Structure formats: C-alpha cells, structure tokens
C-alpha cells in the first residue's frame, strides 16, 4: 500500500478519517492534487510547519473547496498538465456550508473527484449537528434531554443532490470495505467530469465508542442497511453491495453513545422502529438482499 499520508498527524487515536484518506490516496496515486476544506482533516494533518500530505495539498476556507478545486482543474487545463484533482472534506463543508460551491463545481462539470468523509456532525468544533447528522442522534446542538430525543430531522440525501446535478459518477463507500472504496476512487478519477463519493467514517469522539471498534461500527452501518453501498454511473444505479442477512438496527445503534438515550428514554422504542423502517426502505430501494 502506498503511504501518501505520513504518520505523525494529530487525529484522535482510532479515528477512521486517516484510513479513509490513506485508501483514497492509495487508489489515486501520487499524481494527485488535493484540496481540503476546513475540517478535522485539515487541522490534524497540517499544523505549520508540518504536513502529513505527500501529495500537493491546498487549504483555503471551510466552504470553498469545490470552487478552489475548480480553479486548480482549470489551471491544469490551461497549462496542459494532467493530474487527478481531489477534494477531501467532511460532511459539514460538503452538506452544509459548501453546498453553493459544490453545486457550482458539479454544474460546471469540472473533472474533480469530491470525496466526503462523512462522520455525521461538526466534529472539528466539538460534535455539533450537521445536515448529515442522522435522525435522533445526540449532538451538542441537538442533545437528548427531558423532552428531546436528539436530532429531529433525518440525514440530507447528498448523493441524490449530486445526481440531480447530473454528476456522472456518484457512489457511497465505507472505511470498512477498503477494496470497494479503492475501486470506487479509481473509477471516479477516470470519470470525465465531476464525481462524488461519500464515505461512512465513524468518529470515536462524536459517536462515542471504544477506539478499536471504528471499523466494526462502519461495517454494522452497512450490514443493517443504514449505509447502503451503491454506485450510480450516468444517473443509473449500476452496483450495490448486497447484504446477506441484514442485522437489526439496534446492533448498530446500541454500540454508540450518540444513540444511548434511545435505549433508556420513553419514546426511544418508537424511534428505533422508525430507524428500522429507514433501513428497510434502503434495503428495498437498493435491493440489498437477493
């Protein structure tokens, strides 16, 4: 495996994000330029005068990575150079504050691969809700409380938004499925035009679980049907990762502190049913079970 992300970075012990980045860079190879928005990734990998990046890397702002990457891509074209242009950012910049920039980049059709490592909240600032936070997850701005069961809204369907822009390659992936992830990155960077990959990336601090369980939890998200692994090419669903015997969502939820209240508080059982229904809907929509 090519190590294009050096050790010595400052991510939490047990964080999935560096593994996601290592896998993405391994697939993309050294002829790659990465733009990252403000994020855990940016802060933990580039404390001046150090950098973990072994490929050229640029940070500008929280909400403009896609526009900056558009500029990199257009300049490559201008100078008749060839390199993969990647954005690697978290869900805060991808789903929320950078939506305008992302929409512009998708719509203009830049040959940029946008990889979102999705840890489902603003982790860099201390676990606040994002547009990607799942239904009834506890965050510091959607806390569970006497009259609250956590985040009141379901997760935004970002792949559908990418698809609505006619992004020719849209896929989901997981840190627990490295072969699948690398294959998808390779496919994305070969795509003429923009591509979008959303990678499930558990956060030990925000989701609250023991450090060693990072990959296991990511795997459970897939095995319950809550994180379907799919691939759209030119708007057509071309591939899904089948789940042999879907596990109940409780298996996934009970392993994380952010859902602890659902197992303790009145009304929690009803929510668990609703979340199971979301998993079942995914299973049916993507035909996850043969």
């Amino acid at each position, binding site marked *: *495996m090519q190590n294009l992300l*050096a050790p*010595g*970075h400052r991510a939490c012990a047990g964080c999935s994000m560096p*593994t996601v980045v290592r896998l993405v860079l391994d697939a993309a190879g050294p002829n790659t330029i990465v733009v990252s928005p403000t994020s855990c990734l940016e802060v933990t990998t*580039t404390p001046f005068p150090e*950098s973990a990046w072994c*490929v050229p890397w640029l940070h500008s702002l929280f909400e403009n990575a896609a526009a900056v990457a558009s500029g990199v891509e257009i300049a490559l074209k201008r100078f008749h150079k060839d390199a993969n242009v990647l954005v690697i950012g978290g869900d805060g910049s991808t789903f929320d504050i950078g939506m305008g920039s992302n929409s512009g980049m998708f719509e203009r059709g830049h040959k940029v691969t946008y990889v979102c490592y999705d840890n489902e909240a603003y982790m860099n600032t201390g676990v606040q809700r994002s547009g990607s936070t799942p239904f009834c997850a506890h965050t510091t701005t959607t806390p569970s409380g006497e009259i609250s069961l956590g985040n009141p809204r379901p997760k935004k369907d970002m792949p559908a938004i990418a698809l609505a822009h006619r992004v020719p390659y849209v896929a989901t992936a997981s840190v627990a499925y490295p072969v699948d992830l690398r294959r998808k990155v390779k496919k994305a960077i070969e795509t003429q035009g923009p591509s979008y990959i959303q990678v499930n990336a558990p956060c030990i601090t925000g989701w609250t679980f023991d*450090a060693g369980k990072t990959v296991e939890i990511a795997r459970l998200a897939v095995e319950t049907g809550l994180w379907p692994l799919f691939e759209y090419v030119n708007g057509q669903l071309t591939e899904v990762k089948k789940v042999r015997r879907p596990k109940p969502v409780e298996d996934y939820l009970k392993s994380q502190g952010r859902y602890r209240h659902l197992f303790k508080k009145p009304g929690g059982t009803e929510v668990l049913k609703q979340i199971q229904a979301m998993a079942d809907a995914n299973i049916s929509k993507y035909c996850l079970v043969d």
Partner: protein
Amino acid sequence: MSKVKAIEFVEPGSTQITKTGAWRTFVPRIDQKKCIKCSLCEIYCPESSVHQVKDPISGDLIFDIDLNYCKGCGICEHECPRHAIKLELEEK
C-alpha cells in the same frame, strides 16, 4: 523551529518529526506465528504505522508496527481475523 517564510509552503510528510507514539497507553504486539499476512492491519491503521518488513532472522515477510507513531488505538487488534494482535498495557 523552522523559519517562517512569506508563503507557508510546507514540506510533504513532515509530520513525521512528531512521534505520536507518545500518545499511547496500550501497545499492540503481533504474534507472527498466528499472522496469515492478510494485511488488514496495514490497511486499517490510521497512523500508517504497520509495515511489511523482512524478518532479520528468517528473512520472511512479516508485519511490523512502527511504535514511533502507533497511538495504540487497537483497530488492528480488533480487525485481525486470526486474533494475532494483542494490546498490552505499555510499560514506560
């Protein structure tokens, strides 16, 4: 401390000067006899700390953990399909 220049160009891979091994409480030990060389520990390691090296005695390819950087998170232990990696409380 390196000098600050007008433009903050930073050298690639330069975080390696920071030995995050100091963060560790538990240290992973690989039982080479149980290892089937599936490389999952290398793939999943967030610290890029698991490397394939030649065993100095046998000359075989083995997996080795660079303790300069390993933060002792335990993902390798947890994911090892043969339970060949064990976390131990580190004596410092």
